[in-house]
């Protein structure tokens, strides 16, 4: 089976000048990331802020220009940004935003916003659009009387439901969710995540679910990629990665999630400064915070390689212990 979307060696480098006379310094927001998502599959992308996960999501959708690498959607290369072809492709791939209030036009009613993708892509005849909008509202759990409301008249959770409904209107094959629930109350988060999961299963949509919150990702993702400073450090199926994380960074993240009925023992606590993409450490980017770092970690950056079946990691030590080094 061919992947729905396949990214190879994506890179996004910003030139940042710090200080008045300094030379511009490259900041590698995304640095050599490759991944693939199968139709109907959910890939979770986890990382701290500054790990480049949002940029990666936007690059997958073709909203951010690629500086290196390639994205293929349904086997074809991504068309040039803002061409008619690119716009037409939007019907197949959609984004769910972190801040639903900002993503909705405050001057249009919910119903007219949900109808927008239908109008833009001329998907169904005009007279059937209201019915489709009503159907979408039911699907995301909005009441019919909210159709005439404006975004600010809804609650945060309802707004996010509206954004999701708008994203689903054109029946896309891929949904990129960028921190879709982190702006919501914890009590609402679960509802929205469950709804997303249900909609995804019903419609067979592939999903890239970006979050800093492992608990949320665990609930929804089939597979998880962990990012650190613009690179994927470990990738495996959701069950595997949560049961036995291998990369020290993944271990730290997983152990920070409390599990009911278990004591927090053997918890790995991250040390040192949080990652700063403008000041990337030499060697393995994670080594200043790593408790098991060796000399090689300070000098040589580890490459992502297979350490088990359907599992990759970028760590000298893990690779040493598990599989014979093949680099």
């Amino acid at each position, binding site marked *: 089976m061919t992947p729905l979307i396949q990214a190879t060696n994506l890179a996004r480098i910003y030139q940042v*000048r710090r*200080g*008045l*006379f300094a030379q511009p310094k490259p900041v590698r927001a995304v640095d050599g990331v490759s991944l693939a998502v199968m139709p109907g599959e959910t890939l979770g992308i986890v990382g701290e802020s500054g790990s480049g996960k949002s940029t990666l999501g936007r690059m997958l959708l073709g909203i951010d220009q690629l500086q290196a690498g390639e994205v293929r959607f349904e086997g074809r290369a991504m068309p040039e940004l803002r061409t008619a072809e690119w716009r037409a492709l939007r019907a197949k791939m959609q984004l769910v935003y972190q801040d639903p209030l900002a993503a909705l036009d405050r001057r249009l009613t919910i119903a007219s916003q949900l109808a927008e993708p239908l109008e833009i892509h001329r998907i169904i005849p005009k007279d059937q659009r209201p019915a489709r909008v009503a159907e979408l509202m039911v699907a995301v759990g909005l009441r019919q009387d909210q159709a005439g409301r404006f975004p600010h008249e809804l609650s945060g959770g309802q707004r996010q439901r509206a954004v999701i409904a708008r994203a689903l209107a054109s029946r896309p094959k891929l949904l990129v969710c960028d921190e879709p629930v982190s702006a919501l109350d914890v009590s609402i988060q679960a509802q929205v995540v469950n709804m997303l999961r249900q909609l995804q299963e019903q419609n067979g949509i592939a999903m890239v679910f970006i979050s800093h919150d492992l608990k949320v990702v665990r609930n929804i993702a089939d597979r998880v990629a962990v990012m650190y400073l613009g690179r994927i450090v470990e990738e495996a199926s959701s069950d595997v990665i949560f049961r036995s994380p291998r990369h020290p960074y993944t271990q730290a993240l997983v152990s920070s999630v409390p599990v009911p009925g278990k004591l927090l023992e053997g918890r790995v606590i991250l040390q040192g400064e949080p990652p700063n993409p403008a000041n990337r450490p030499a060697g393995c980017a994670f080594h200043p915070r790593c408790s098991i770092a060796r000399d090689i970690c300070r000098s040589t950056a580890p490459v992502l390689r297979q350490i088990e079946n359907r599992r990759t990691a970028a760590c000298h030590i893990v690779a040493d212990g598990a599989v014979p080094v093949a680099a």
Partner: protein
Amino acid sequence: MISFVLTRLLRAIITILAVVTFAFVVLRMSGDPAQVMLGPDVPQDVIDAFRKAWGLDQPVWVQYLAYLKSIFTGDFGVSMRDKASALDLVLERVPATLQLTIPALILKLVIGIPAGIYAALHRQSFADRGVILLAILGFTIPSFVMGLILVLVFSIILGVLPSGGQDTWVHGILPTITMSIGGIGILARFSRSAMIEVMGQPFIRTASAKGLKWRDVVWSHALPNAAVPIVTIVGFMVGSLIAGAVVVESIFSWPGIGRLLIVSVSNRDLAVVQCILLVIAATMVVSNLIVDLLYGWLDPRLRSRAAH
């Protein structure tokens, strides 16, 4: 910072070049100065001689390049009417204009800004409403109406102040007042809204919540932040020190730049008009440049943004 200053300087130079070009194109394309200067009933050979003497028989772009070159060497041409250096004619009038505009600017600053800030700090009070009303009045009455009303009241009805001329400092009173009233209104309005905007910011609440004296909150937190928009307006006023007096000088027969401009425009005295346009634009551009640099000093955020 250096690259920021350089970019701004470059933009300033481009702007001045654009003004020169604009003046040149408009003035040269619109009519034959020879006809205007010499009158309609002059023989053709006299006209030709005149055109040759002033270089008007050359192609336009040659005239333009010659003009650019002469400006570059500090020569702004010779007035066709007075046969005197245009720059000298213009500079000769500058002091008269500044005699009006500088006192007017000072009046605007010392009355407008405090009034606006006072109004902002005492919102909805009687004083606030008074300031708003006076500001709007000052702002909506055009200077030519204001000037004529002042003349009507103080010169014609009361007979206490002269209505025109430049003989003594008393003659300057009415024009200065005429010019400053509108500016006072504008400054008061701007200072008031800038101050109100700043006073609504969270950091002001924080400052007063942490127990700072109200006076310290206003002086060390609110005022510096309100200064940015106020400086913009003041910069604009400084920039129009020379240009702002055209109408008022014309009402009070004050022999400044503005009168010279109107007279030269009606005589189509090209060299003088171009020179005035350039002097005015240069003042404007230089004060804009200074305002931009002041921004950086007043607002650290802009400083860092400028560096990018």
